[in-house]
């Protein structure tokens, strides 16, 4: 400290050199990040300010300012895609957290064959999403499929799942829940096992019932794990693409089309680079602020509850 305060002395230049060395050492990493993350984002943003349609090269690539953004916000298909994404996020994440918690609590109790049980639970997570989505599609697609046949046996008339704007959501959400609940369960299980068992013993001594123990000990102490699981799942669900692409293709009509699928079809199928880039930038900004907010909440939660 004394050295640092001494004016023009050798200490300050040493510090400067140290800092320079630090930057030099970090440079390759920073350059890589700039190349693979910052540069594409900036380029996409620049692209989004142009009219650039690969299928209409005669229009050239004029600078159009915010016109693509204006089109996006006035586009009913984009607005409803945002709505569909919200619906999917809400339904899937809620069910996944609920089911994941139940599975985690059950797994926490298992004492014999623990490894086997955990492996078995994790299986759906290990199956590639596209394969899982195809399996679920087959179960719902044909009138002879598993889901429809089961409903018929119960005496109900099954809908034509993928031709019904509301019913189509059921297989979509179910497939996603089936696929990712194990992931949530595993995260929560880790959280459960971090809770000091002495707390439950003390609660037993104090005469607290199971429910009271759950609400007063388990849930509050599980909060960091729940938040992590929520953050991961919500961000994933916001970007949902493969399940929908395989199962409904966004249909019937565009009734189940999420933002990522609309962006994909605009950019890669219709090759509208300008407009598609604008959609990408909007998605990026939303995801970025969502992540930022979650990390702040999470950070606070972790510091408050973590050391307990």
């Amino acid at each position, binding site marked *: 400290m004394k050295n640092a305060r001494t004016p023009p002395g050798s200490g300050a230049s040493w510090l400067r050199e140290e800092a320079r060395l630090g930057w030099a050492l970090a440079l390759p990493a920073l350059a890589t990040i700039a190349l693979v993350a910052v540069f594409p984002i900036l380029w996409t943003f620049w692209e989004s300010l142009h009219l650039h349609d690969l299928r209409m090269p*005669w229009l050239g690539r004029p600078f159009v300012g915010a016109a693509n953004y204006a089109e996006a916000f006035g586009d009913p298909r984009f607005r409803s895609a945002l709505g569909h994404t919200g619906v999917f996020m809400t339904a899937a994440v809620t069910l996944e957290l609920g089911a994941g918690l139940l599975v985690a609590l059950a797994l926490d109790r298992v004492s014999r064959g623990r490894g086997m049980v955990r492996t078995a639970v994790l299986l759906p997570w290990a199956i590639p999403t596209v394969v899982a989505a195809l399996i679920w599609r087959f179960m719902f697609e044909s009138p002879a499929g598993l889901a429809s046949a089961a409903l018929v046996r119960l005496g109900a008339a099954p809908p034509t799942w993928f031709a019904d704007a509301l019913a189509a959501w059921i297989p979509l959400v179910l497939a996603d829940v089936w696929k990712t609940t194990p992931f949530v369960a595993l995260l929560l299980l880790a959280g459960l096992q971090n809770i000091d068992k002495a707390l439950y013993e003390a609660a037993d001594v104090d005469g607290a019932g199971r429910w009271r123990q759950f609400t007063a000990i388990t849930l509050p102490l599980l909060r960091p794990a729940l938040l992590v699981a929520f953050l991961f799942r919500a961000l994933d669900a916001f970007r949902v693409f493969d399940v929908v692409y395989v199962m409904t293709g966004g249909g*019937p009509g565009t009734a189940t089309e999420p933002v990522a699928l609309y*962006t994909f079809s605009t950019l890669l199928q219709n090759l509208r680079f300008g407009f598609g880039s604008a959609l990408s930038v909007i*998605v990026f900004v939303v995801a970025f602020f969502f992540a930022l907010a979650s990390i702040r909440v999470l950070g606070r939660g972790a510091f408050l509850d973590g050391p307990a």
Partner: protein
Amino acid sequence: MANGRTWILRAAAAAVALAAGGCARAEPHVLTFSGSLVGREGDVIRRQLDRFREANPSIDIALRATPDAANLRHQLYVQWLNARASDPDVLQLDVVWTPEFAAAGWIAGLDRFEPPVDQFFAAAVDADRWNGSLYALPWFVDVGMLYWRTDLAPRAPRDLDELAQLARRAQEEEGVPFGFVWQGARYEGLVTVFLEYLGALGGAILDDRGRVVVDSTAAVRALTYMRDAIDIDGIVPPAVLTWQEEQTRFAFQNGQAAFMRNWPYAYALLQDPSQSKVAGRFAVAAMPAGPDGAATAALGGSALAVNAYSEQPEVAYRLIDYLLQPEQMIERARIAGEFPTRPALYETRALADALTIPLADALKVIERAVPRPITPVYSQLSEILQIALHRALTRQQEPRAALTEAAAGMRALLAKVKLGPLASTP
């Protein structure tokens, strides 16, 4: 994340361009062909290219595999040609892509080679013209046709109402689960089915001057007719709303449907007793007309074009000319079941022997062939229409509302694209 895609795409396009450029420099005499190379189509093209090579030893030919799904091939072509790749030299184009590629300057005008256009079906050649110039030549034609069960109906239906009656009777009296099946998933196939109903009821997507008329009363009636066949008449199962060609063929060949709308490819497969329960018990006809229209068959098929950036357009055209010779077309008909584009061949014994489908029946349908709108922005128009049709058929919107919205979207698009003849649209 999505925002990385532009970059990846550009890098890929650049890499393709570099690779293509490099190839062209290293082996100046290699002519490249790209198109459908799988299954029977692949067998035919390989045979024919081998023969071409033998006849022209100075020319070496390489095949460029492209995805079999039309939309994926389209996407790849657009990326290649945007990068001005000189390879592939010869492109197999879906019939609806020619105006788009021509307007973009991606394919070379063929008029200077003075091709014998009057030897091909006029409707097919029309689809290969843009702004009065010829940009491709028709390789084979596809037409939407009505498959009907000869054991369930006394004759091919004469109009749409008779089709509905016969379908219902087959369901009620013969216990056939489905009266009529067609392709109702949200994809290009749905537009072709709609085009046939549209023609049957006297409507159109664009009029002669390129103006959008898909919100006309006739069009609303056509779409309502399709929807009611599912919801009110119950002759078309709601499951078709997720079906493409193959699902309808499976239903028909298992004896579950009395009528089916499909392309000619299904004929040979349905006649194969090892997989079909209806072999020898079906025939084909044109989709019947309705009250105010004419029997209409959607025109599909492929054309051959020369890459505008090709370094050897003359050689490329020689290959196209070779592939379009009667001999090659008949071989293609025999192996892949695809219809030649030369009307004269339909009077020959050779073609009658090559095709499983009776020649007279095929010709009757081809005569009713109507192309889809000939415009560089067809793919975009089609996407707008697919969504509107599917919304109406799945009861998310009334047919009139859906088509009004689609027409507005199409008009806005056409106004934006600033094309010569289309710009005259008021």
